């Protein structure tokens, strides 16, 4: 089983990456390769769940593997497991990478590979780098050391996601949304999820592998999804719209809090320990002032992450909701396509009979506009309220 096995439904990308890995091996072996056959900077783009970071990781393994990504050797294992000495992962997550951290990473990536092949710096969510950290990265990407490879992942090549200058230095690998069957197949094969659950979850997750896995395993994720899918029939009037908006926002907040609060506390405790909080003696007052600054800084970054995490949770809910209206639309025009939410297909079909196709389409657009609005920084509550009202009126 090669390193590409978990890259679901991405044949074109796998082809490109394997060819580059072969060229990279030739470079390591001292053979001459055509200019451009191997590139030092790669940009992996694609919708959430399409496997950007999976692809980047697999490619990193293929670069380190003597066999171009056999999937079984030590180099493949350590790379995929995140412990290879020459592969560094950067996962900004909202706790943004500071400029100095980024400089250190870049410096490290410039050193010679300890295993004699490549130094790889893999930045997941490169769209979440701060501008300053991005600039530090840009300098390295502009003049890459001979044996260094940068792998960046962003949702798209839009300037909001990645600076135009970095983008212009990168070779772009575009991943597509994998088909549900391919996702279900991975869930069964790799995660041992029963086929019927895998099929349902893959369809409900609309091609998002991680989300499908989460949905198949986590009862809370299942009940959150049920609550979202109940929204259309709850919208009985203006007041109900605001209640539904409030419920959706609060669910996103508590989901985000559940995922971040434990990490927050751990990070803060670690920082306090590192700073020796409560110290006395000479210079303790000055140290305390510096300490306070660092803790404030950590709290600020954690707040950013919490906000981001709320928006992500809200976006997942909106994607579920969009699926419902998409199913209604499919049903109203009689298209021979499988529903996203097979388990509530009866409800979406019933809704489709009540609504005109035009108003169903307007509803679907309202959900998509809400996602775009939140992405454009509109206050989530305002965007969701406007959407609920539009969904009610149709």
């Amino acid at each position, binding site marked *: 089983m090669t390193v590409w096995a978990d890259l679901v439904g991405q044949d074109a990308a796998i082809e490109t990456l394997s060819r580059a890995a072969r060229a990279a091996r030739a470079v390591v072996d001292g053979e001459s390769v055509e200019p451009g056959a191997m590139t030092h900077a790669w940009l992996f783009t694609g919708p959430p769940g399409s496997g950007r970071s999976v692809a980047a990781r697999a490619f990193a393994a293929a670069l380190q593997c003597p066999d171009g990504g056999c999937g079984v050797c030590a180099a493949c294992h350590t790379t995929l497991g995140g412990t290879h000495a020459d592969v560094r992962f950067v996962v900004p997550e909202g706790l943004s990478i500071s400029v100095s951290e980024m400089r250190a990473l870049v410096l490290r990536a410039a050193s010679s590979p300890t295993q004699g092949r490549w130094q790889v710096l893999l930045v997941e969510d490169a769209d979440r780098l701060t501008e300053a950290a991005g600039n530090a990265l840009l300098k390295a990407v502009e003049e890459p050391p001979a044996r260094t490879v940068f792998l960046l992942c962003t949702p798209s090549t839009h300037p909001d996601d990645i600076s135009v200058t970095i983008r212009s230095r990168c070779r772009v690998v575009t991943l597509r949304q994998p088909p549900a069957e391919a996702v279900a197949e991975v869930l069964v094969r790799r995660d041992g999820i029963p086929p019927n659950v895998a099929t349902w979850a893959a369809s409900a997750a609309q091609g998002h592998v991680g989300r499908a896995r989460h949905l198949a395993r986590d009862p809370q994720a299942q009940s959150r999804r049920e609550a979202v899918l109940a929204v259309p029939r709850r919208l009985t*009037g*203006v*007041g109900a719209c605001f209640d539904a908006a409030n419920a959706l926002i609060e669910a996103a907040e508590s989901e985000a809090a559940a995922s971040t609060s434990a990490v927050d506390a751990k990070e803060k405790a670690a920082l306090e320990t590192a700073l020796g909080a409560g110290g006395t003696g000479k210079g303790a007052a000055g140290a305390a002032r510096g300490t306070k600054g660092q803790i404030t800084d950590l709290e600020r970054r954690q707040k950013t992450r919490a906000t981001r995490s709320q928006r992500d949770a809200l976006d997942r809910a909106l994607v579920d909701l969009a699926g419902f209206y998409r199913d209604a639309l499919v049903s109203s025009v009689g298209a021979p396509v499988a529903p996203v939410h097979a388990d509530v297909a009866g409800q979406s079909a019933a809704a489709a009979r009540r609504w005109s196709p035009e108003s169903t389409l307007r509803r679907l657009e309202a959900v998509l506009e809400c996602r775009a*609005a939140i992405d*454009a920084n*509109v206050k989530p509550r305002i*965007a969701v309220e*406007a959407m609920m*009202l*539009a969904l009610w009126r149709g």
Partner: protein
Amino acid sequence: MSRPRHPWHDGAMADRNAVHLVLGDEELLAARAVGDLVAAARAAEPDAELRQYMAGELVAGELAEMLSPSLFGGARVLVLRSGQDAKKDVIAALLAYAKSPDDDVTLIVQHVGGAKGKALSDGLKSAGAKVATVPKISRPRERVDFVTSEVRRLGGKAGDAAAEALIAAVGNDLRELASACSQLVADTDGNIDVRTVSRYYKGRAEVSGFNVADAALVGDVSGALEALRWALHIGVDPVPIADAIADGVRTVARVASAGRGSAYQIAGNLGMPPWKVERAQRQARGWTPDALVDAMQAAAECNAAVKGGSDDRAYALERAVFAVAAARQGGGAR
């Protein structure tokens, strides 16, 4: 010798040889009632000697001396503040005195009411003291009335809208409200409207946004645009203004769809302060559900525009004002 009386303030009229009890815990109003009584007593007897004590610091001996008939006859005004703190023997002495007050003495006892020192307040009442009760101001309506009457008292004029704007800017503290009223009356011709308030409290973005939303929601386009231009002119950021517009539409929509019921019930159900509910109930007239959908849409678009999507954020706000007012006018696009 007859002197003019304040016809509007009978409760606070001071008669000579009277015992007065000012009861209630609205501190500003209590202090004013005491002040009025002292003024009246001294108006009646300009040479009267005024002594003031915190009741809790007074000992019975001092009190007896103050209340005993004077050899030289001079009139005296004795003010005891925080009567609820008075010690037992002081209370006993006061109650004994209240049954047969001295002709030359005006005794004014201020008491917050309530359980503490109830023996004194009850005892003075049954001894026939003249009671002036100062109302507790807690309801939004009462606070608005306080501001309008306060301005009137100072010789100015202010409507409910201006009063609400002032409360939104200054907060609920009566002393601060009173001093804001006196500043506004002193610095203007006394005619205080929403714009006057905005001008004085320009630093407070929420007031500016509130004014814009408020006018837009009742269909007062020119008022809303004026408030908007003013807010932008004095440098208020567009984002809180856009938020205020959305909040205004949201509040009207939620209150309008909450059905009938008192402002307090609705406030409880919606988790909103009652004054907000009352205001929204007034503003909700003329709105249909469809119109509210359009208005909320406009508010969301405006929010997107001022968050950076638009080159001209002022224009985006103006458009939202027009859209909200037009939605109300048209009763909804579809």
